[in-house]
């Protein structure tokens, strides 16, 4: 049970929007928005396990067509993992497939970069039979494309004039994981992967930083997720990279999610694949490379950052439906008037560029509809009843502020008033989600100065931030003893002298420790 079906017309559209507009050939200085992921060399599987997932798997053949709003969602505070799976099932985001969840790479390619194959080997899906015949060479279903890309780059790059060479692809990739979780860790996922080759180490570094910068911006501005950007430790660096930059997000259960990565690959792959160019002085040199990716994992990040006990909560900028209109009538003679008003309100908002949907089915009660659209995470709800029609106004409720507090009566239906109000509220919700997530994040990061303090913070489920200059072995020891790993050395560092929390030696940087997905 791990293959996921993305139903998200919403979130697939987020990906598609940028893919259709962008040329696959990135030019220098172009700043595309993209979405997440790379597994580190040492895989850090979460301790939470698969029992809940198995329970959530639907019986396809049977007639148990359990319906959305009739299912109760496990409260988030009670069991975060179960809550996540419930929300996904209920909000019609994904269904488990009946299997465990080119694309083809000759096995010999994968083997070329030694640490790369070591990092990925257990997760490789191998095709050995095609068209009824045993294949001569087993084929790997791509877990990432560095090896294919280098194969291509080696043929396309001749001289310094061919550099920088920068490509991007939107693709599906496969990693045969034992423990899966919708969006976060699936056998197959969608992503964009960018690959670039440069003439100098400096240019490659600049590119890697530029991309992690764009991912950071995307997280804050679009997804309202206050990620912490930084550099991975040696232990957590991508298999085959010199440096890995990452954006780390704190989920509602305070576990960390690596939401996007950008790698400076140095010359590791270009040496393994002999990807060389002739420089301006006629000398042969190996190219300097980067790769960077964001995947559908990011969607899991949005759900686990903003969702609550009523279901999903989508940031307005990413919501496929930003406003849902629920017309309310009791008597038959009220219906036409209410529907008319609802429909003209819809038109007004639609023309103003707001993504709006009207739920006018007469099969469900307004209360049912409220719950349903809250579950789906729609940021704003407009209610229109007979009294509103006569007063020419509507009632507007915010998804992120529950109950009466989030409800405002008597907003004029007048186009100029309504559009301005709705746009304003959407902006406010967007900012408010970010502010709330930021406050949550900050209240759950503890500054530590000793290993004991670190252990204490982690045991409370928090993140620990402290000076670190200890060895890889000591980092692994922390992992073994606490379950936490170094998420990153944040770009933003406190000033002043620091001593390593583990060894007491001088430390140049603080590291961020947390349990992670």
């Amino acid at each position: 049970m791990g293959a996921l079906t993305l139903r998200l017309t919403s979130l697939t559209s987020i990906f598609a929007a940028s893919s259709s507009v962008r040329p696959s050939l990135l030019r220098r200085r172009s700043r595309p928005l993209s979405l997440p992921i790379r597994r580190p060399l040492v895989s850090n599987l979460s301790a939470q396990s698969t029992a809940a997932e198995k329970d959530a798997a639907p019986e396809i053949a049977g007639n148990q067509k359990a319906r959305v709003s009739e299912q109760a969602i496990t409260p988030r505070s009670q069991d975060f993992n179960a809550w996540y799976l419930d929300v996904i099932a209920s909000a019609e985001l994904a269904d488990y497939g009946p299997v465990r969840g080119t694309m083809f790479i000759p096995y010999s390619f994968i083997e070329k970069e030694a640490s790369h194959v070591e990092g990925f080997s257990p997760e490789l899906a191998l095709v050995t039979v095609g068209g009824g015949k045993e294949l001569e060479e087993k084929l790997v279903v791509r877990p990432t494309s560095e090896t294919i890309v280098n194969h291509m780059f080696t043929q396309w790059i001749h001289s310094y004039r061919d550099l920088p060479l920068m490509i991007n692809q939107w693709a599906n990739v496969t990693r045969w994981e034992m423990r899966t979780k919708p969006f976060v860790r699936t056998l197959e996922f969608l992503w964009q992967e960018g690959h670039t080759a440069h003439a100098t180490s400096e240019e490659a570094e600049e590119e890697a930083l530029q991309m992690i910068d764009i991912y950071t911006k995307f997280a804050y501005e679009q997804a309202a997720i206050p990620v912490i950007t930084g550099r991975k430790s040696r232990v957590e660096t991508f298999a085959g990279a010199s440096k890995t930059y990452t954006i780390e997000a704190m989920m509602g259960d305070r576990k960390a999610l690596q939401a996007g990565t950008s790698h400076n690959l140095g010359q590791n792959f270009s040496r393994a694949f002999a990807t060389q160019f002739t420089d301006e002085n006629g000398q042969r040199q190996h190219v300097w490379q980067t790769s960077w990716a964001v995947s559908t994992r990011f969607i899991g990040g949005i759900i686990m950052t903003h969702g609550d006990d009523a279901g999903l909560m989508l940031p307005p900028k990413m919501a496929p439906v930003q406003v849902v209109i629920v017309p309310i009538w009791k008597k038959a003679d009220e219906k036409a008037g209410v529907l008319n008003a609802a429909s003209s309100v819809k038109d007004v908002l639609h023309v103003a560029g707001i993504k709006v949907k009207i739920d006018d089915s007469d099969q469900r009660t307004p209360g049912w509809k409220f719950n349903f659209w809250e579950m789906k995470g729609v940021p704003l709800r407009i209610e229109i009843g007979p009294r509103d029609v006569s007063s020419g106004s509507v009632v507007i409720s915010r998804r992120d502020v529950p109950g009466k507090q989030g409800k405002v009566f008597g907003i004029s239906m007048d186009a100029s008033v309504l559009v301005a109000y709705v746009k304003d509220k959407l902006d406010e919700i967007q900012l408010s989600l970010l502010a709330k997530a930021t406050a949550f994040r900050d209240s759950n990061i503890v500054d530590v100065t000793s290993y004991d303090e670190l252990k204490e913070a982690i045991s409370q489920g928090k993140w620990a931030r402290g000076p670190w200059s200890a060895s890889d072995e000591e980092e692994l020891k922390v992992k073994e003893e606490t379950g936490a790993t170094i998420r990153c050395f944040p770009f933003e560092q406190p000033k002043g002298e620091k001593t390593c929390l583990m060894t007491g030696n001088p430390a140049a940087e603080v590291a961020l420790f947390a349990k992670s997905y």
Partner: protein
Amino acid sequence: MAGGKADNSKSKANTKGKEKEVKKETKLGLSVKKDDNFGEWYSEVVVNGEMIEYYDISGCYILRPWTMSIWEVMQAFFDAEIKKMNIKNCYFPLFVSPGVLQREKDHIEGFAPEVAWVTKSGNSDLDVPIAIRPTSETVMYPYYSKWIRGHRDLPLKLNQWCNVVRWEFSNPTPFIRSREFLWQEGHTAFASKTEADAEVLEILELYRRVYEEFLAVPVIKGQKSELEKFAGGLYTTSVEAFIPNSGRGIQGATSHCLGQNFAKMFEINFEDDKGEKAMVWQNSWAYSTRTIGVMVMVHGDDKGLVLPPKVAALQIIVTPVPYKDANTQAILDTCAATVSTLNAAGFRAEADLRDNYSPGWKYSHWEMKGVPLRLEIGPKDLEKKQVRAVRRDNFAKTDIAIDGLVEKVKEMLDDIQQSLFNSAKLKRDACVVVAKTWGEFAEALGQKKLILAPWCNEEEVEKDVKARTKGDMGAAKSLCSPFDQPELPEDTLCFASGKPAKKWTYWGRSY
């Protein structure tokens, strides 16, 4: 231009890069003419035009940026159109369990021999091998069964953009027949056959527009024969293109009405508005990267690719033509200014300012890549405040005043788009032969024609035609019965069986 290198030969500039690169000029161009050896020409043009890179696995091709930008233009058009029809995008898994794959019998008989299987993860064998989707009917429909319960859940209209794998052993050809390819596949379910029928045609019209309006390739809309329809479906409609050089028809895209066969297999039932249980009516429809191969084959010439302006990654290439003693800087500046004017006006334009290639080399290079319009700027042009425009499709040269540049360029690109379609249509039409008897049919087939023949519409007769035309070139088959039917006089007989004819049908060899 990233990756902008015309030379695909294995020899690399090992020393003194600059000198060597200039020498490569001699290797530009195609070694085969389109009319002499079409197959060779095609393989060469897709590689030299930088659309395809051959890969270590036979039948798998790397689609280079020059290809992907064409695909993205078609994708942007089609995606927007189906969204207007309220069709939503989704993504189903690549992997299929054997049980699900075998659910629909007729269907799987068609695909089983071509399936690729994952049998190992890392070093361990999987308990049950997992198939890689050859198409997604059997992957998706169990969930349609789950999601559809009442008539209010209908219509259910989903589409996905994805890759599929068909492990064929017959001669692989870039774009046309590859083991992995990209496509969109739409899968819809309706309460009534009427709605399904209407959508089949609505989608088919979009496919026609992709071919005719974007790729400038004329197609024929029609219905497939029983023998050629989609396995397990009710009927199949298609747009059919024709490649004059090879004398083969090619199925451009298909829009199927599946009827209720799949609904029955997968128990996709709903309660209708009277409270009674009913089965849904389904459609599926797809077009793939094959479209790009058709475009290359139809428009390409002995100098390389010819891209229709609407889909070309680059519509205009601006090249400086410096002379000795000329003010080179002024020329380069004008090139750059021209590009920014054109880009600002919404065109896809670039300047090739590389100083290690001669203007002549650049002309050949961009002709090879099929850029529709070239603007040359030399000292005289500078003087006269003009640029020299050269069309890729007919090499016509025109001097354009810088003043009216944008309008003139737009006019020319529109004209190139239209001329490509017109000339492709003329060539295609010239290949159509009406054959009323077996003798006429056999003769036309020998001449590699697209044959329009009166047919009795019997499956056995089509099988017989296939058997009788078997040979090195492959057998003839029905391509489609065009919706646009010429008049069929009452006593017309079938060209193959001599029985009364029921309709006009296109026949020929095909890809």
